């Protein structure tokens, strides 16, 4: 399997760092050694010294700046485009949050500082935990998990530890077929077995199906609330009751929390464990794929199993607590993605309770507005209100064999990032549209208009859609080739 590129195509959008490299160039100079010389050769045996240097490129600072600036200009992003990726909550990332996270006295904090020299940051972590508890109606939170998936793993391990502490072996986790792939994957990492629950045709929980699988072997039922179809499960409290009667726990995947903030607390409807995605609901930057944070909230009986260290307040002094006998252990090398946590703290300070309520309501309003305006193009759309996102099926409305994938690519030509596509898997040719609370009505109108035009194109000029995108920096990619002949690194720089 060839791993390094062996041919240089004529058409290059932006050359690689390695292609811009010439020996002797340097980006950032370093100061001279100002201490008496110690000989590495005398102190480190040859076998332990590096034989061949890393073949890193050599560029000047202006080259590096231009390179990455130009690369950035190839991206669509929230700052530049409407980005209605369903279930990702692509809301505005406030710039003040970045400014604060990079204040030298935050950025310069070593994680192993004695607690006496960490009072400011520990207060932030302590308060953030408390506020997340209040927003979610939970009793305790851990801020350690670095992303939603790690949060799920943490939550599942906590549930497992809880059952084991009561002498119960419960190997099964029940997950609807509409769930995000991380749910069953996290179950597998936790050493339990995922059981898939078939949903009803309209994407809700099939109560009979649930009842048939609930037993004393079920540890957990994992649900996304609202569902991955953007619908609030009206029988959620009944479901919670059934789950608890079977001695199991109810886990909520909090990816869609933007629909609930300020309006409803998961803890009030029977949720025992949940994770949040701070890079979704709480405005921390998505970063092209992270870093995020996936804090996990639990009800009181589960608190003792949460990862260490915990942050405690004793006699006005904040401390990190390590001494927790029943903890599942650490999931992060240190305290978690603190820079992300600081940003979430700032966001909550900016919003306050009224702000959060506004967010939930505006997100729901925007999604229903889009739904109402799209109705004429998607006549088979499920009736009734949605929550913060709307899911439609591309099966039927598009003519001439045009598929959801093609429509997504054509939207790029219209200057919109595409909605989430082909998820949830139970909706054929799915498009999941989440506008968020930050988009103007004008933008939403323009998006709907574009969808209408594309559907018309699919009937009258289908090739235009099937061959989209036409105006992005690159056109449709040969993904088959990328998988069959993987080229996963650049050619090394000639020395």
């Amino acid at each position, binding site marked *: 399997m060839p791993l390094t590129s062996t041919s240089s195509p004529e058409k290059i959008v932006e050359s690689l760092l390695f292609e811009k490299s010439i020996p002797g160039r340097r980006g950032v100079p370093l100061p001279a050694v100002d201490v008496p010389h110690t000989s590495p050769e005398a102190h480190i045996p040859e076998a332990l010294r590096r034989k061949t240097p890393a073949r890193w490129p050599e560029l000047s600072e202006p080259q590096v700046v231009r390179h990455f600036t130009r690369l950035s200009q190839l991206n669509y992003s929230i700052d530049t485009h409407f980005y209605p990726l369903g279930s990702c909550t692509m809301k505005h990332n406030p710039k003040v949050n970045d400014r604060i996270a990079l204040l030298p006295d935050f950025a310069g904090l070593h994680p192993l500082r004695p607690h006496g020299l960490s009072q400011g940051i520990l207060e932030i972590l302590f308060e953030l935990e408390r506020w997340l508890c209040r927003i979610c109606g939970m009793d305790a939170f851990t801020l350690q998990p670095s992303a939603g998936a790690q949060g799920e793993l943490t939550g599942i391990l906590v549930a497992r530890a809880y059952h084991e502490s009561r002498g119960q072996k419960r190997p099964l986790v029940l997950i609807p077929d509409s769930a995000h792939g991380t749910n069953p994957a996290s179950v597998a990492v936790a050493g339990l077995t995922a059981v898939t629950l078939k949903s009803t045709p309209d994407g809700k929980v099939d109560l009979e199906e649930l009842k048939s699988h609930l037993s004393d072997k079920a540890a957990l039922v994992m649900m996304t609330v609202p569902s991955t179809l953007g619908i609030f499960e009206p029988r959620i409290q009944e479901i919670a009751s059934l789950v608890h009667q079977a001695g199991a726990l109810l886990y909520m995947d909090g990816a869609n929390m933007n629909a609930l903030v300020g309006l409803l607390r998961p803890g009030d409807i029977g949720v025992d464990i949940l994770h949040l995605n701070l890079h979704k609901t709480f405005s921390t930057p998505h970063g092209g794929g992270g870093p995020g944070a996936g804090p996990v909230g639990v009800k009181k009986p589960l608190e003792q199993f949460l990862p260490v260290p915990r942050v405690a307040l004793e006699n006005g002094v904040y401390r990190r607590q390590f001494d927790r006998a029943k903890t599942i252990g650490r999931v992060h090398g240190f305290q978690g993605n603190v820079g992300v946590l600081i940003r979430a703290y700032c966001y909550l300070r900016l919003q306050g309770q009224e702000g959060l309520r506004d967010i939930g309501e505006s997100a729901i309003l925007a999604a229903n507005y889009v739904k109402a305006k799209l109705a004429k193009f998607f006549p088979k759309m499920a009736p009734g209100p949605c929550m913060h996102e709307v899911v439609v099926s591309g099966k039927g409305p598009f003519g001439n064999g045009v598929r959801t994938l093609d429509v997504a690519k054509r939207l790029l030509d219209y200057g919109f990032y595409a909605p989430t596509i*082909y998820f949830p898997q139970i909706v*054929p040719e799915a498009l999941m549209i989440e506008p968020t609370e930050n988009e103007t009505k004008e933008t939403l109108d323009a998006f709907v208009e574009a969808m209408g035009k594309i559907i018309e194109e699919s009937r009258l000029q289908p090739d235009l859609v099937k061959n989209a995108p036409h105006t992005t920096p690159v056109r449709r990619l040969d*993904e*088959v080739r*990328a*998988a*069959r002949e993987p080229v996963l690194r650049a050619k090394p720089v000639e020395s």
Partner: protein
Amino acid sequence: MDLKNLRFAESHEWIAPDGTVGISDHAQKEITDAVFVELPKAGRVVAGKESCAVVESVKAAFDIYAPVAGAIAAVNGAVVKNPAALNQSPYETGWLFKIAMTNAADRDKLMTHEQYQEFVKIHKH
């Protein structure tokens, strides 16, 4: 390959009288371009309907199930090197592995090609 001699499982694998196993033309169309094939080790004992191979497309992974019980007698290294063969020639060069069948009569319990085509028609979504 004379399709009349093949027998088909509901999970879309075919098995020839000599124990060679592959996937149907219908299946390769559903998978779209195969990018990677993972085959079992020769010698492995498999039960009927046991998952023992994987075919990956860009967007999905498909489990392949042994149509009958037996031991893996041979695997097709060529299709691992060139997954496209699975799409181009699912009944010939795109074969996957060969089972030394525990009981050759197990094959008769599976569908004929005609029955399989009916089956596909009924179950098409």
